[in-house]
């Protein structure tokens, strides 16, 4: 076994276990913390796949922004330190059944797919080239320019919506 494989197995285990903690812990704040561990694990897996741009963006966006905002939201809206919720409601049995059925279907269909027979080849790009190729792919009209711009439009829409909700509609009192 190479060191990379050992690191991969460790990181994958940590990622999966912390992902289980995210959905099974009672304290919602702890669940958010474990979510950060999961995201970090995914970032390390990106780094192991030589996708350093995605690893950095994963840390920057998901941990640096989204997880922090999540924690802020939890801190500001819930009672400090005493928030315990049940994860299940009355219909857990039927949901479990449905999930099992879908899992069987998915696994039986996916296991015959040839995705599992692919082998990884190392990237040919050196240094900056992979990022340059990614940028060109995202902004090239023949590439993914349209989905990229649509995603940015979606984010802009979300931003405007957020401002609208937060805005003081009567426009008077505290001005």
């Amino acid at each position: 076994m190479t060191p990379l494989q050992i690191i991969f197995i460790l990181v994958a285990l940590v990622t999966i276990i912390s992902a289980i903690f995210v959905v099974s812990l009672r304290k919602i704040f702890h669940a958010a913390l474990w979510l950060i561990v999961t995201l970090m694990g995914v970032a390390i897996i990106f780094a192991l796949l030589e996708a350093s741009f995605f690893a950095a963006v994963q840390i920057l966006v998901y941990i640096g922004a989204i997880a922090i905002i999540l924690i802020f939201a939890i801190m500001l809206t819930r009672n400090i330190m005493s928030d315990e919720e049940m994860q299940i409601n009355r219909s857990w049995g039927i949901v479990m059944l449905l999930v099992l059925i879908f899992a069987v279907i998915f696994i039986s269909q996916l296991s015959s797919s040839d995705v599992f027979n692919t082998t990884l080849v190392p990237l040919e790009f050196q240094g900056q080239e992979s990022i340059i190729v990614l940028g060109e792919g995202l902004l090239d009209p023949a590439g993914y320019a349209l989905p990229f711009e649509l995603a940015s439009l979606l984010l802009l829409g979300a931003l405007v919506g957020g401002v609208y909700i937060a805005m003081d509609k009567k426009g008077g009192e505290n001005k």
Partner: protein
Amino acid sequence: MKILEFLSDPIIGIENWIVQLLENWGVATEWQTFIVYLIGAAILGTGALLITLILIWAERKIIGRLQDRLGPNRIGPWGIFQPVADMLKIFTKEHIIPDGVDPIPYHLAPIISVASVLLLWAVVPFSDSVRGSNLNVALLFILGVGGLGELGVILAGWGSNNKYSMLAAFRASAQMISYEIPMAIVLLATVILSGSMSLGDIVKSQNIAYIFFLPLGAFIFFVASIAENGRAPFDLAEAESELVAGFNMEYSGLKFGMFYVADFLRAFTSAVIFSSIFLGGWRGPGAEQIPILGFVYLLIKSVIVWFLGVWIRGSMPRYRVDQMMAITWKFLTPLALALFIVVAFVTKLIENTNQWLQVLILLVINVALFVAGFAIVKKFRKEKERIVVSTKKRVLAQPTNPFSQSETGG
């Protein structure tokens, strides 16, 4: 001759020696790389932490001189062993865990704080060949790791189960998130100039240091990095009159020591990164032939930048919360955005001209933007508002009327 060659580039020499040794022992190539990187990381981390000892002493001494004091002067010559004594003391201190802390965040926070600083050293190029990792997204990495620092602060504030810690953590993380934005935009401008996000390439492309291309950018980055580190004049996360001691109030002993070390090390680390991005890092006369000179140049540049930070810390009063927020959102961020747009256009226009001409044009643009920014701020500055907090009348207890009753019964 052999010794001279070794001395001119000792790190690579030692690395080659270790690789040779491992090869003789019959270790596989992958494991050789792994072990060499592991040793390198351990040495780099330990070295960075040991530098902190000197930094703490130097900072206390400089601030002491700035405030017309002597600073530490009892232990050893010029008090140079003071941090060693402090360290030994902090090791032996009792470690108090307050009641009702949230154990995981509480114990994790100091570790994350120190780790987020040490991680930054992984991408700093010390010479042409010696660096932790030539990451091709080093600038994004720097910003992302800054986000981890925020996480440490929030965890400390939350885990302590104390409302003052919590308030200070909110303040500190709001400050760090806000100042990351102008910082990121300025970093984008340097990416435009160098055509690369790797710190190694950025340093290599600086035939003329970027501070001459982007003096305004360097200024914004410097201010933002001071604020990001939470040092004076932006140290309002630990304003003792309002928040007791900041987010690390409930920590004692070694855990407090870790926050303390992270604080001092972060100041120096951001100086190192500033000098790598704007001052040409390891570059200097003869640094390419004799790599060890690169260390010396980087150290000199970093110490100068770090000293500027300490100087500011020793001489400026603290900002208020609203002033701190106004500085980033109403001044630095718009200025950085304007600078970024202008630099993006202008560098494309003058792409093929002489480098000195480029420097001149960008320098003029920077100064013009700076002056315009200040003029706009000055124009829209309001007169100081004075808010009357209370109008309750009180009768003073004066010696002439010791028995008089006030309206409030006082």
